[in-house]
């Protein structure tokens, strides 16, 4: 696993790791999969594509890992896919990257990975469709100036084009921008555009800072974020900012997610996940050397989230990977991974949603489901289809 454990997107990577470990810990305690323990070898790439390349080479050439798992981020994944292609003879595959970009879903890299989650195109199309149904046709985009932002931007553009519309305008920010930074330049663009809604394709510090500065300038149109933003981490920053300023930064926020709400205990997988997160909360943190490469300080201290969409995704990623491993028997070979995964057919991870790999098209994305949540009393809660009416433009 190569992910940002110490820089601007660390909450995503730490929570994804924690979720996966919450599933793997009891499996390993019970003797592992077919007698083998499943270990995540994690390296920090600080959301930097060059570091991700170095980590990937280390994982493949030095560590000779069984598979690559849970990479976090589009720009990092995009730059590592050519490496996988170069190592194709050794059958390395990337399982369940935490990104919805198309790069690993379309040629030439579509045969090198398996995805559990829906794509950004599906998330953004869903948001666009709902906004338009709510008579919100002037949609602006706030996005990270890199491959991830561009993937979301392209999804929104395509979604609007299906309705005969175009993006009303856009503002970008540099990858790694912190919450405390001013986003006034981006907000000035939005003031000029006067959009009916803004879709954010960024990370939680930047999106949080942008929402704060937008609300400070009294721009109160709905703001949507996609799954990679890290909704809970953004909400935590905004709630803290609200306490300081006595302003409302958390209303009119909607988020698309690719896993069910972690508060929806009617879903069996969510109950299972919550129980594991509670039971192993202390034991599933990544090593300190990974999250504090320069030593732990009070201001850099990471407070884990009890539950989050990201850790639930990590939990489901690990559950599906273990299911594939179980089918491989006591002597799993890397060369058999693709065949085994594609032969999974239809399966259920306990989300109540039928999942599948390997139809006639050689499908490598298990889920197409997109969920929507809104903030209520400082927490994300599911937004039912019928509740979108409240978002209709007056």
């Amino acid at each position, binding site marked *: 696993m190569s992910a940002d454990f110490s820089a601007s997107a660390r909450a995503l990577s730490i929570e994804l790791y924690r979720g996966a470990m919450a599933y793997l810990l009891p499996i390993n305690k019970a003797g592992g999969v077919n007698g083998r323990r499943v270990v995540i070898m994690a390296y920090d790439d600080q959301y930097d594509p060059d570091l991700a390349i170095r980590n990937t080479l280390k994982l493949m050439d030095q560590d000779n890992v069984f598979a690559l798992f849970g990479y976090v981020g589009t720009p990092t994944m995009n730059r590592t896919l050519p490496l996988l292609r170069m190592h194709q003879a050794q059958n390395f595959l990337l399982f369940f990257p935490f990104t919805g970009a198309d790069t690993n879903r*379309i040629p030439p890299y579509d045969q090198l990975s398996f995805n559990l989650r829906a794509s950004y195109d599906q998330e953004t199309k869903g948001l666009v469709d709902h906004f338009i149904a709510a008579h919100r046709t002037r949609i602006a985009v706030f996005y990270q100036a890199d*491959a991830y932002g*561009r993937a979301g*931007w*392209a999804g929104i553009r395509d979604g609007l084009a299906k309705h005969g519309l175009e993006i009303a305008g*856009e503002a*970008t*920010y540099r990858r790694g921008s912190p919450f405390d930074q001013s986003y006034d330049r981006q907000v000035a663009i939005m003031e000029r555009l006067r959009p009916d809604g803004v879709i954010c394709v960024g990370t939680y510090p930047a999106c949080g800072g942008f929402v704060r500065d937008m609300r400070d300038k009294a721009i109160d149109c709905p703001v949507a974020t996609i799954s990679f933003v890290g909704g809970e981490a953004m909400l935590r920053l905004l709630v803290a900012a609200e306490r300081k300023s006595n302003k409302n930064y958390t209303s009119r926020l909607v988020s698309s997610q690719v896993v069910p709400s972690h508060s929806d205990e009617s879903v069996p997988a969510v109950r299972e996940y919550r129980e594991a997160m509670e039971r192993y909360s202390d034991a599933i943190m990544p090593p300190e050397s990974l999250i504090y490469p320069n030593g732990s300080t009070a201001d850099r201290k990471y407070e884990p989230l009890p539950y989050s969409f990201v850790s639930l995704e990590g939990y489901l990623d690990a559950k599906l990977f273990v299911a594939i491993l179980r089918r491989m028997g006591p002597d799993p070979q890397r060369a058999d991974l693709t065949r085994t995964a594609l032969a999974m057919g239809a399966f259920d991870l306990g989300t109540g949603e039928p999942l599948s790999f390997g139809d006639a098209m050689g499908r490598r994305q298990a889920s197409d489901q997109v969920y929507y949540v809104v903030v209520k009393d400082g927490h994300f809660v599911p937004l039912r289809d019928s509740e979108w009416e409240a978002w209709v433009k007056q």
Partner: protein
Amino acid sequence: MRIARFYQKTLFGMFALMGLIVVSTSALYVYTVDRQLTDDFQKSSRAIARAIANSNIDLIVGQNYSALQSIIDQYVEIPGISYVFVVDPKGAIVAHTFVPGVPDEIAADYRDGKEVYDRALAGLGNFSELTAPIVAGAGGSVHVGVDKGYIALQVQTAIGNAVYLLTIIFVASVLLSYGLMYQVSRPLDHLSNYAWHSLSSEKRVSPPHASQLKRLLERIDEVGELGRLIRRATGREA
């Protein structure tokens, strides 16, 4: 240190000539380096635009904008390259590196198929924008912006170093020439003093010291001969 008057004009002439060489060399260097570096930057920027346009046709035509963005992001890490953007066949900007957005000046003028745009972007500076067509323009175009300020800085640095070196050489040459002239003109100075002292009733200069006079009269060159003639003329020869 005094230098004989008839050498002073020669010395001044030498200094003027050296100064002229330094100034003209610097001017030629400024012109050549400025043109060369500007040309080099423009050529490499055009090469980058062509490389993006020619080697990523599948990404552009296939609308894989995320992968395309990954590629153009790498080019803005090159010093001097300030921005890159890609235009699709319909004239829409489908990938770019601007923060917080595409500047108004560019949004208003990028579609007329020019090979080079000279840009003055508010708050950002002046840029040379080189373009390359994708599939002869049928697939759109790639635009690469080079920061003219960066080129100017490179030119100034290169020129500054050269002019600094030439100035040091000039000052060293002046000092060396002055020292050599002094060495040449000192015996003449002694001879002149000796002549005044020996042949004139006006004692407006002090005579050379005995050891200086001895060295002067022992010289085998024209100065020594003149000294010996003056001594004979005054009847002081032993």
